[in-house]
């Protein structure tokens, strides 16, 4: 049996989520904008899904914009705010550890005349509130900080930052919660969040589903021109069955305890600390499901493939960066040296993983690491 420890890249869809997707796709296939009753039923299903999600999040239904996932939500939030409020100012504050869909969106804006400050984290990979405050200028329209880092699992102080931003009423606050949603609780009201990105395929939903929470009163310019679906914020015929499956996936989150994965990552962390060949990059008190560490001397990529032979699936950095063949931008920002960064491995668990699998993972490392180390020594 395969041991799947790459849930931060994508999760395995829950069977009942898949079931909803298939049934809704067959039964409610009509275009929700059509006037006839099949169209109306499809629209009704979307609105019920929206009600359900809004209800669970304790927000209002008109604050949910369905999108194609985390990347689109992040782009809509960042580019949408930058464009809508450009008369207010053209400066954005974000961090050096954001996901590419935030980082590159900011890079794009720099090309079109905006300025962006990328705040450096401390060596634990955590951004400090005061550094964010120092970066704010009179021109700043948006601060974008992720909730949980996708590589290290470090939880960012979004609540403190949100409270700080109350002092700057013209600055909006976007949180990329793709890795944190359903795993690390976040009170949107207490954290004064204006925009929040969520992706379906990180929570046992399907790729191509997600939403942007947009607080009432906050405006964004849409990314797409078209038929004005999602109250004009996201044109394009709605992904009816995807949206239904997303509502299902989010409801199922309520029945699972994300802290259960902490027992497993905690066990693995403890075992790794006992072994002298590892360096852990995930600070304590991080998200329960992620553990990022290096085995210096063994390239991350080599270890990924060696573990794969044992039917254990892990990744080096984030999936979105792993093909670039560069050491992680995030570890670099944390001042991790290049050799350690090149040997980094990320495991990310979900509610479907077990303690037994965690034990097998450690056993496999114990077998593989000495062999790989020996081979390396023979080469040098």
């Amino acid at each position: 049996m395969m041991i799947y420890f790459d849930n931060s890249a994508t999760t395995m869809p829950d069977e009942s989520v898949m079931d909803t997707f298939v049934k809704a796709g067959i039964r409610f296939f009509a275009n929700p904008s059509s006037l006839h009753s099949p169209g109306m039923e499809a629209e009704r299903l979307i609105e019920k899904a929206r009600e359900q999600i809004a209800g669970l999040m304790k927000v209002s239904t008109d604050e949910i914009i369905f999108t194609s996932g985390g990347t689109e939500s992040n782009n809509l939030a960042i580019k949408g705010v930058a464009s809508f409020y450009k008369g207010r100012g053209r400066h954005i504050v974000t961090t050096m550890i954001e996901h590419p869909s935030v980082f590159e969106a900011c890079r794009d804006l720099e090309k079109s005349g905006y300025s962006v400050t990328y705040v450096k984290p401390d060596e634990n990979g955590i951004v400090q509130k005061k550094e964010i405050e120092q970066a704010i200028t009179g021109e700043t329209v948006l601060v974008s900080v992720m909730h949980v880092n996708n590589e290290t699992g470090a939880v960012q102080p979004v609540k403190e930052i949100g409270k700080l931003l109350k002092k700057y009423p013209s600055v909006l606050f976007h949180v990329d919660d793709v890795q944190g949603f359903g795993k690390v609780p976040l009170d949107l009201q207490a954290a004064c969040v204006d925009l929040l990105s969520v992706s379906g395929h990180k929570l046992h939903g399907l790729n191509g589903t997600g939403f942007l929470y947009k607080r009432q009163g906050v405006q964004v310019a849409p990314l797409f021109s078209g038929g004005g679906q999602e109250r004009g914020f996201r044109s394009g015929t709605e992904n009816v069955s995807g949206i239904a499956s997303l509502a299902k996936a989010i409801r199922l989150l309520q029945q699972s305890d994300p802290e259960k994965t902490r027992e497993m990552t905690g066990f693995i962390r403890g075992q790794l600390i006992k072994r002298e060949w590892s360096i852990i990059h995930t600070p304590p008190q991080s998200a329960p499901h992620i553990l990022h560490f290096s085995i210096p001397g063994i390239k991350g990529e080599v270890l990924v493939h060696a573990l794969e032979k044992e039917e254990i699936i892990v990744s080096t950095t984030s999936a979105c960066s792993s093909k670039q063949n560069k050491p992680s931008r995030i570890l670099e920002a944390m001042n991790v040296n290049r050799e350690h960064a090149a040997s980094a491995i990320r495991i990310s668990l979900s509610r479907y993983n077990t303690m037994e699998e965690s034990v097998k993972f450690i056993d496999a490392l114990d077998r593989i690491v000495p062999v790989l180390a020996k081979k390396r020594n023979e080469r040098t």
Partner: protein
Amino acid sequence: MNYDRILIRYGEMSTKGRNRSKFTNKMKSNIKRLLADDRIQVEAQRDRMFIYLNGASFYEVKEQLLHVSGIQSFSPVVKTSQELDEMKEAALELVKRAMIGATTFKVETRRADKTFPLDTHALNHEIGGHVLRGTENVTVDVHHPNLTLVVEVRQEAVYLSCETYPGAGGLPAGAAGKAVLLLSGGLDSPVAGYMMMKRGVEIEAVHFFSPPYTSERAKQKVMDLADTLTKYGGHVRLHIVPFTHIQETIHKQVPENYTMTSTRRMMMRIADRIREQTGALAIVTGESLGQVASQTMESMAAINNVTNTPVLRPLIASDKLDIMDTARKIGTHDISILPYEDCCTIFTPAAPKTRPRTEKVQYFESFLDFEPLIEQAIRDTETIMLPKKEKEMDDLL
């Protein structure tokens, strides 16, 4: 510490004499149906009602209770043993939960179990002292406290409560008989329905549907409105009357400036027939004097002329802005403003008579027998029971 039960105080119901149990039983069954949770038990006593939560969440139940008509106020109650330390701890936590900023409080002890070693005075002192020590910015005021901590010592247990939530007031839905509500899809009629439900009236809603001039969405909108009303007490039956043929006939038969008056008269005749069939005693409309052409005194007289049934108009003297406020409060506003054509907005004459004369409209209608058309419409009426469980969709999500 979890809330164990909820104490409900009656409002106007407590002025009832020998027939009070009719009202309390109605409210009990409304609450049971609304909460729909097998764990929850409801016990109606003569002057108060108890909801036994048995593990259900108070905060979820609370949201629903806020809308139940007939409730004056309610309080969550915590149960402890007769151990003084346990009582003190619970009291302190209750006060902490209920207080907002600086506050004054008093303890009110009732000692039903006279064998309890401390008397009420000593208990007030013990518990009050513990609360004072455990909090900041809290002082005792026995005359006008912001918070009253009620401690009831009984043989089997001790019950404490501190928070009180206001209820919706009025009388239990269904305790005052049944009426037919003309539900158009606009802002006023749902509010009129809500006000009658608050007075204990059970609603049979009637909607006139004119396909293909009005869309499925207009029908869905009315279903959503009726469904929203069910939050305020029990079920609502929605009768959807196919009205196209009658409207087209009026359009052909009656001079244009009288079509509106005649249309309303037909609606009233049909509503009255449905009233008879369902055993309702009155017709309720959302009319507000002078708001539109059909709601002038002359129009109402000409329209009302078709029936002797009492026509109740709870909004007759209300201003539009007040009606809109209520609509927002009860959650029908955002549904009502959805822009779908309804049967009143199609075939609208350019200049409807604001002062129609009854004899004239009678004369115009006299050339054709509308009776068979009315009977046909009633035969083809679709009846929907709300709250409708959209089971198929709910199962998917």
